[in-house]
């Protein structure tokens, strides 16, 4: 779990409508910050969801995912920005 002193290195965004619930991203994530939702998306799949914190931006889930646009992975900008601590704290 992340703390305010050490903000997450990365983040992941999952488009629930493009996810087919195969779960390959969940097993690809070494940090265990992805899981499959209990609820269904509108196509009847249990889409993957991000826990909201803890991602290190390794990108492995992106490669494990068979859908072109279901997962996007973000990496914290190399140079720390002034606004960063406030955003994380918020």
């Amino acid at each position, binding site marked *: 779990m992340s703390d305010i002193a050490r903000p997450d290195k990365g983040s992941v965004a999952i488009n629930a409508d493009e996810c087919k619930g195969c779960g390959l991203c969940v097993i690809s994530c070494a940090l265990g910050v992805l899981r499959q939702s209990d609820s269904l998306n509108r196509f009847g799949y249990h889409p993957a969801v991000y826990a909201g914190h803890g991602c290190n931006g390794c990108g492995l889930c992106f*490669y*494990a995912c068979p859908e072109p646009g279901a997962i996007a992975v973000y*990496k914290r900008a190399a140079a720390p920005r002034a606004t960063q601590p406030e955003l994380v704290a918020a």
Partner: protein
Amino acid sequence: MSEFDILHQRAKCFYDSFERKAELQHQTHYCPGCGHGIAHKLIAQAIDELGIQDRTILVSPVGCSVFAYYYFDVGNVQVAHGRAPAVATAMKRALPHGVVLSYQGDGDLAAIGTAEILHAANRGEPITVFFLNNAIYGMTGGQMAPTTPLGEKTTTTPFGRNPWTEGYPLHVSEVLSSLEAPVYIERVALGNNKMIQQAAKAVRKAIANQVQGLGFSLVEILSPCPTIWKMEPADAQKWVREELTKVYPLGVFRDKTKEAQPRPAPVPAPSLDELPKIFSAKEGRPPALAPAAPCRRTVDLRVKVAGFGGQGVLMLGQVLAEAGLDAGLEVSWLPSYGPEMRSGTSHCHVRLSNHEIDSPLVSRPNVLMAMNEPSLRKFLPAVEPGGWIFYNGTSLPEGAMRTDVTFIVQPFIALADRIGDTRAGNMVMLGAMLEATGLLESEWVASALARLSKSERWLDLNRRAIEFGREVIHREVSI
């Protein structure tokens, strides 16, 4: 997320929406956990990184990935089953600057398309081939593929694949790496994160080789098929990792990337203007003679010319038909022959008429030109009463007789020897036929001969043969 930079997202060379269906415009048609989607992403990412989207041509196969052209925003061609390497060869030669990617499954590449991939690899075509091996026929519902492991139960091997009846799993990468020409062949798998990262490298390298102008590159990708394997996606991935890689060991089978020299640019195809010279054709066409006396009488000539291949049967018919054209008649010429270039049976149907010809078939000839006995016997009964029969022989064979037709029997081919070449026997027969029936003017035939004879020498010989045939008729004795 302003403090974050995008690290991975949908590749730019995918379309923004997939227009295959009205709904699901952002999803592929692949099953959950299918390896095709991952392979597509690896290829798309490599295309983006190499900056070649505007000159990439993807050849989609037949199989589950038949619809790859709905996803990749590049040049796309979808080809007949197994023929992707042949089409890719043509496109690469026609567009040397293009980056041609052939994407094929194991049913496509390793079964019906074995010849195409083998020879494309053996020629060292500078294309890139992605071979998705999931060891089964996916799209058609789970039949055995050449790549199916021994003992695996499929719909066509319900007791498991038995090597005595179904043979052994086909190791495509190993087979192709026994060839001299390929530059790069590697087998990778989509079995876990590490394997997928290695696959990404291999895919990128195989495309980069082509960008550098090097020769044939192929990446075999062991890929999960959860639906047909009847496994959860995670289990299918595990099966790739733990079972399929035992049958198909991963690794680089060929890598001449460092020492391979860029291939010389293909010799450009000749321009249209150069073609007559290449085929030693004469400049232009000899002008057709204007008919001196256009045909005013009623003509309904239905000719069957028959004989052995090599006797000039088809040529005889062509001269007749072309002469009809010069007479301003409607004509048709329909050849019919076996695969043999010599000594098979051969015949042609020729029709000349004042009226439109409804069918080029001549089933009721009024002229039969039989160059040998079997042809005479075969077509004799079909000749219309009152018709003409020209037979190449010294006498009519036993039993081949009719009283309601006119026979002209002469050893036309033997007679042609007197003017110097038995090969002109067909024209001797034509001359006799023209003289006997009197239907076509000499000028029309002369003009047709000038167009059809392959050289001056032949033109002279054919002219003399026809004249000789006309003389022969007057010496003819009716039987």
